[in-house]
């Protein structure tokens, strides 16, 4: 079974040379730590920066340079700043190649819910609805089950949707899955996790064809 860093490490393998990537808050932010050094990638943050670098050294924080998680950041050579409308032109116009975000629920048809639990928790969608409606490649990073042990990979989302039929790939603490026409296609198992365990933790239709390899985390 993977921890959050393990999930981020596996997702980092999906980041290709020359990609512009938008990382959501939470596990997705960790992906930046595991991208190979020998490829060129630029991270976009929707509040208006492309070419995001690591956190600043202590004492060098600048209140005017933050990411969408409101964390102080630095920029790398080649970076740029822009306004919010331009930022979402990059996103809706499909200039950003890959979006990695978290989710509360994903359905077997690719629907995603991640912004609201009616009557209980309302954080808002932020940029998530724009991102999922437009991105060509969307990877969801999340735990396979919620805190009470219920599956987050469902036949149908129970929470208000963020986007419809948009998720392509999911990386959880148990598995790598792809959305196919008939449901979740199991591609890889996390180290030490059996197909049976993944089946038991997946409420939606799980398609298992042939031998399912274990993830290679390098």
């Amino acid at each position, binding site marked *: 079974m993977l921890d959050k860093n393990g999930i981020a490490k596996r997702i980092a393998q999906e980041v290709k040379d020359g990609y512009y990537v938008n990382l959501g808050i939470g596990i997705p932010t960790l992906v930046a730590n595991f991208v190979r050094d020998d490829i060129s990638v630029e991270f976009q943050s929707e509040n208006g920066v492309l070419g995001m670098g690591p956190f600043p050294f202590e*004492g060098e924080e600048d209140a005017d340079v933050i990411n969408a998680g409101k964390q*102080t950041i630095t920029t790398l050579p080649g970076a740029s*700043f*822009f306004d919010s409308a331009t930022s979402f032109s990059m996103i809706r116009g499909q200039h950003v190649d890959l979006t990695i975000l978290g989710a509360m629920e994903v359905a077997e048809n690719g629907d995603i819910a991640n912004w609201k639990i009616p009557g209980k928790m309302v954080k808002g969608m932020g940029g998530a609805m*724009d991102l999922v409606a437009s991105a060509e490649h969307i990877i969801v990073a999340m735990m396979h089950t919620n805190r009470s042990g219920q599956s987050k990979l469902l036949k149908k989302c129970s929470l208000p949707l963020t986007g419809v039929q948009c998720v392509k790939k999911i990386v959880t603490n148990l598995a790598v899955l792809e959305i196919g026409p008939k449901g979740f296609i199991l591609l890889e198992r996390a180290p030490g996790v059996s197909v049976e365990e993944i089946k038991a933790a997946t409420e939606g239709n799980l398609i298992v064809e042939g031998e399912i390899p274990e993830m290679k985390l390098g």
Partner: protein
Amino acid sequence: MIKKTVSSVEEALKGVQDGMTFMLGGFGLCGIPEKAIAELVRLGISDITCISNNAGVDDFGLGLLLQKRQIKKMISSYVGENDEFERQMLSGELEVELTPQGTLAEKCRAAQSGFPAFYTPAGYGTEVAEGKETREFNGKMYVLEEAFKADFAFVKAWKGDEAGNLIFKGTARNFNPCMCGAAKITVAEVEELVPAGALDPNQIHVPGIFVQRIFQGNDYEKRIEQRTVRKRN
């Protein structure tokens, strides 16, 4: 040259009234019009509608107006870290229109640019699209979103000149340029106000035509929400 300079925040906010709709720049606490917000609190006007990506934190930014119950309605994309906002929203005291962030920016830009509405894929199939016109283009579904209408836009820039030209710094730019000229009156507050001619016309982010009033604010607090750092080796 048409002069846009006003001498004080009091003069800059002349004409604001109960029940008006305001746009306020900023992302989290980054690039918010601190001086205009403080003046709105001081004036004590109420029943206002605020268009702003976030609502500050409990004791800073728009959170200050929420505390005093001056806000009737918020149009935002993210409530996030503001407990008072979440409490007022869940209890029904505060009307909230949650809007996808890119749609929020574009509704400002549409108002600025003279477009009454536009189609976006964001929110299609979700509760955001309920009651809105939808339409298919090239096999994909889109939602019709209308431009904002606002009485005042309050923005914050790094530098500005007497002609109202603005330059922003870092990610403090965010929604500010999109809101300039998107309301009947745009008020810009800047950290440094310089004479016309002191800024290079090649470097201007927002031309002065979109700004009606400009003033220099002093002692910006620029509070950091999430101070994240790494250790030196």
